[in-house]
């Protein structure tokens, strides 16, 4: 993957530092000019921890100057997400309460739009935006694995093993999505459409990375997972149906078919055996599990609102 286009002065300076034309320290007083500049900067900094950029030295992942800037941007977003989630409440017993909390979500659905009325161009646009996450599907949650008590860890390992194709590279979920993209005439390379993604899509990705990379936020990482999986089966059925209506390749629809069934399993694992046991074993994580679940639902609602407005214009 090559570095994306800058979206403002801060992201431009960070990309310059990646390429060696600016120091990686000395960020005092340098602020993002807007939401796009903020989200893209943080997204690029996080990407150093995954498969990175072909044109950026690997050792910048642990560069103290870049980590200090990342921490400053993370503080802004964590404060924002905690403020938004303040009124979120989950009843006890926790697993049942969390399932009910997620089920009560009534945010707008891009999947329903794709099923009924999207044009082919709109569906392809959605796939390009979704590719930012789906091409590294499940990876952010893997960071959380070594930070968990025994029961939650065993259940998360079972879930991730399925995400990673049960050991079969041909069934690995991010690979299935890449094949679908390619057969749809889109570029399957990771990060290939970052320049097309609106700030809110980058914010969704940044939430996953932040929750995954900090042990302190392991509860939020797993709460996000639970909400993501438990709002996936029925929308995936709608997506598959819409993609077939539009005549997109069978492999792209089959990616969503796989998620109808897989995520019907994963939501039970994530809510009951992962989040449920985590909160029993480490009760101090309860608030952050709710924060993660709320943030997942809230950011998807913000994305869907943005996308549906754009398409109705």
């Amino acid at each position, binding site marked *: 993957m090559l570095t994306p286009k800058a979206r403002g002065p801060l992201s431009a300076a960070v990309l310059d530092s990646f390429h060696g034309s600016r120091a990686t320290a000395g960020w005092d007083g340098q602020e993002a000019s807007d939401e796009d500049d903020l989200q893209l900067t943080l997204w690029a900094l996080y990407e150093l921890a995954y498969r990175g950029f072909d044109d950026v030295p690997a050792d910048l992942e642990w560069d103290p100057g870049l980590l200090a800037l990342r921490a400053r941007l993370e503080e802004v977003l964590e404060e924002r997400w905690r403020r938004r989630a303040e009124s979120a409440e989950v009843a006890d017993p926790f697993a049942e309460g969390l399932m009910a909390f997620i089920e009560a979500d009534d945010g707008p659905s891009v999947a329903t739009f794709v099923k009924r009325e999207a044009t082919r161009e709109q569906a392809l646009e959605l796939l390009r935006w979704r590719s930012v996450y789906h091409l590294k599907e499940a990876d952010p949650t893997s960071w959380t694995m070594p930070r968990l008590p025994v029961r939650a860890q065993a259940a998360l390992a079972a879930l991730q*093993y399925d995400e990673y194709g049960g050991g079969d590279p041909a069934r690995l979920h991010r690979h299935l999505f890449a094949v679908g993209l390619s057969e749809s005439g889109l570029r399957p390379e990771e990060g290939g459409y970052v320049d097309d993604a609106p700030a809110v899509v980058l914010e969704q990705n940044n939430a996953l990375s932040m929750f995954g990379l900090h042990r302190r936020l392991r509860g939020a990482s797993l709460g996000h997972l639970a909400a993501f999986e438990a709002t996936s*089966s029925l929308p995936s059925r709608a997506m598959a149906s819409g993609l077939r209506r539009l005549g997109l390749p069978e492999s792209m629809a089959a990616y969503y078919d796989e998620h*109808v*069934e897989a995520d*019907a*399993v994963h939501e039970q694992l994530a809510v009951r055996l992962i989040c449920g046991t985590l909160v029993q074993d480490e009760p101090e994580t309860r608030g952050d599990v709710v924060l993660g679940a709320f943030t997942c639902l809230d950011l998807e609602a913000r994305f869907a609102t943005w996308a549906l407005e754009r398409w109705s214009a």
Partner: protein
Amino acid sequence: MTAGEGADGRGPERPRPDVVICPGGPMLVFGDLVVEDADGEQHRTHRPVSAVCRCGRSASAPWCDGTHKALPPKLRP
């Protein structure tokens, strides 16, 4: 309490069950097994954990497809 043991005492020393009934939802089954449906047709699991439909409305029967969530609480398993 030892590390990882639950507040309810249900720690990891208890073996994982092979089947977990999810209230209002499917039945989770662990491992590789064959499910025979009501018509006598056999379906082999193809993932480490599978969810068997209990509401009778799944379009992917015998596997759960989340349809139970669209049912009123009274009709859920």
